[in-house]
């Protein structure tokens, strides 16, 4: 294990885990408190259309993915703000249409899409220096925007109607959250792949939600948990010679269900203690 740390690709993978966990924790918390998991899944899968397009026209895959995830996020946001009851089906439609477009583009593109699998399922071990630079810049953007608008973002998440009555630009703030989600998804596609990225964005914040009672605290714990999940998954995958993205997700999932169990027994114990106290 220790000799693995000497490899440049392993150092890059660890750096990617650290940088990715900032987006996971901060934006993932906003996703969880706004119940936007399905939207996140849809944005991630729609990115496949962008990957296909980038093979066809020869641009950087992440640029294509960013184009499609931002586009689908804004599209879903615009259609469902006109009619909130429609958002469920709009999310499903964008999800599948993005995948379908991706398949069509890849079929039309000349040659064979070699590293497609790495975007579908992630390959943290093939992260490059320029990927890291991109991730670091996205983290700076996320932290700056969330930091500057923190109180507004929390107010809009808690009670959008009151926030609007209080003069906040609710739709713009919601669209901002959708864009931050789209950019985080693109960033995490390198780590967990677009199929499993939904888990990276929601599990750490959901675990934090079980034990913490403010958005700020949730964000901090989620960042720490994401980093821990990714590093543990990375190490396990190395030792067991298994795919890293999958092992990271399995570690996160295991912790999530253990946390659910712990929160449940904790509540039951508190309830019986307060019964005895009476």
């Amino acid at each position, binding site marked *: 294990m220790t000799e693995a740390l000497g490899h440049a690709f392993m150092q890059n993978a660890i750096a990617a885990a650290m940088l990715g966990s900032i987006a996971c924790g901060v934006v993932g918390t906003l996703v969880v*408190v706004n119940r936007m998991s399905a939207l996140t899944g849809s944005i991630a899968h729609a990115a496949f259309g962008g990957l296909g397009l980038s093979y066809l026209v020869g641009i950087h895959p992440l640029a294509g993915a960013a184009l499609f995830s931002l586009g689908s996020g804004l599209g879903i946001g615009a259609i469902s703000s006109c009619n909130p009851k429609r958002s469920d089906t709009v999310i499903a439609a964008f999800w599948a249409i993005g995948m379908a477009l991706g398949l069509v583009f890849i079929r039309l593109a000349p040659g064979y899409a070699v590293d497609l699998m790495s975007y579908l399922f992630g390959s943290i071990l093939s992260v490059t220096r320029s990927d890291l630079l991109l991730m670091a810049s996205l983290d700076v953007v996320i932290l700056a925007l969330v930091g500057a608008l923190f*109180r*507004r973002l*929390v*107010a809009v*998440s*808690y*009670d959008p*109607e*009151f*926030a*609007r*009555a*209080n*003069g*906040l630009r609710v739709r713009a703030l919601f669209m901002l959250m959708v864009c931050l989600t789209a950019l985080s998804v693109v960033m995490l596609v390198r780590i967990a792949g677009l199929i499993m990225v939904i888990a990276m964005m929601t599990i750490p914040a959901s675990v934090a*939600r079980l034990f*913490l*009672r*403010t*958005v700020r*605290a*949730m964000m901090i714990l989620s960042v720490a948990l994401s980093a821990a999940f990714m590093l543990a998954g990375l190490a396990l995958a190395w030792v067991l010679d298994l795919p890293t993205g999958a092992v990271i997700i399995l570690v996160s999932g295991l912790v999530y269900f253990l946390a659910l169990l712990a929160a449940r027994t904790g509540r039951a114990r508190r309830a019986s203690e307060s019964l005895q106290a009476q």
Partner: protein
Amino acid sequence: MTGPAREDLSGGAPAVLLREVSFQYGSLASAGAGHQVLRDVDLRVEQGDYIAILGPNGGGKTTLLRLILGLVRPSSGSVRVFGRDPSQALSLVGYVPQLTTSAGDFPASVLEVVLMGRIGHGGPRGGRRRDRETALEMMSRLGISELASESVSSLSGGQRQRMLIARALVGSPRLLLLDEPVASVDSASQDSVYTIFHELNESGVTILMVTHDVGAVSTQIKSIACMNVQLFRHGEKLLEADLARAYGCPVDLITHGVPHRVLGTHSRSADDQ
């Protein structure tokens, strides 16, 4: 931002002025087919008034408040708040929504939620400390200061209602809109909440309250109206005939000798019909 707005108020424009306001849901394409929520509503609320609007559930009361807040636009007619468009009067208006519409299970402390009412009202930067002091002061006035660091999900209905009242008041509104403000408050705390509304009204705040509960109207109100799609009457006294038209059934106005109530509750026989 609130400075010049305050000065304009001396002009004496009505706090709320609705002229022939109709509202219906549904797209313009299907005009006429939509469900009509309000029809030809005229309402004039002078500054300093304390008005209660009574009506059955589904009678358009919440829609009326949403029109005054500029959250929805009328299908026809005009809405003015302190003489201007509702979107230009937001900093003057405080809103206490119906309890059911606000999220109960959310990771926020009571103080954090009350502070949300200061966003957009807080003046220049660096006012965080002042925001906090204002919030804590309002919370102690409402008797919930010891709950400051509690999680909102642990509150009872009455405590949450008082938190929402505090959130509306920390923005120092000139017009307070209340949607069923005492629906889940126990009767002892109802009195204290009404005392606060009365004091605010005495200090010049205009109050507009909507409720379906005839028994929830306090003696301190200055005018009253009934509403069910149309607005029926608007004056100092409530007539049984207006109530009957709004509710579509006879309603008895019986005083129980309870000091803070002018009206009895819906009588059993009226419910049966």
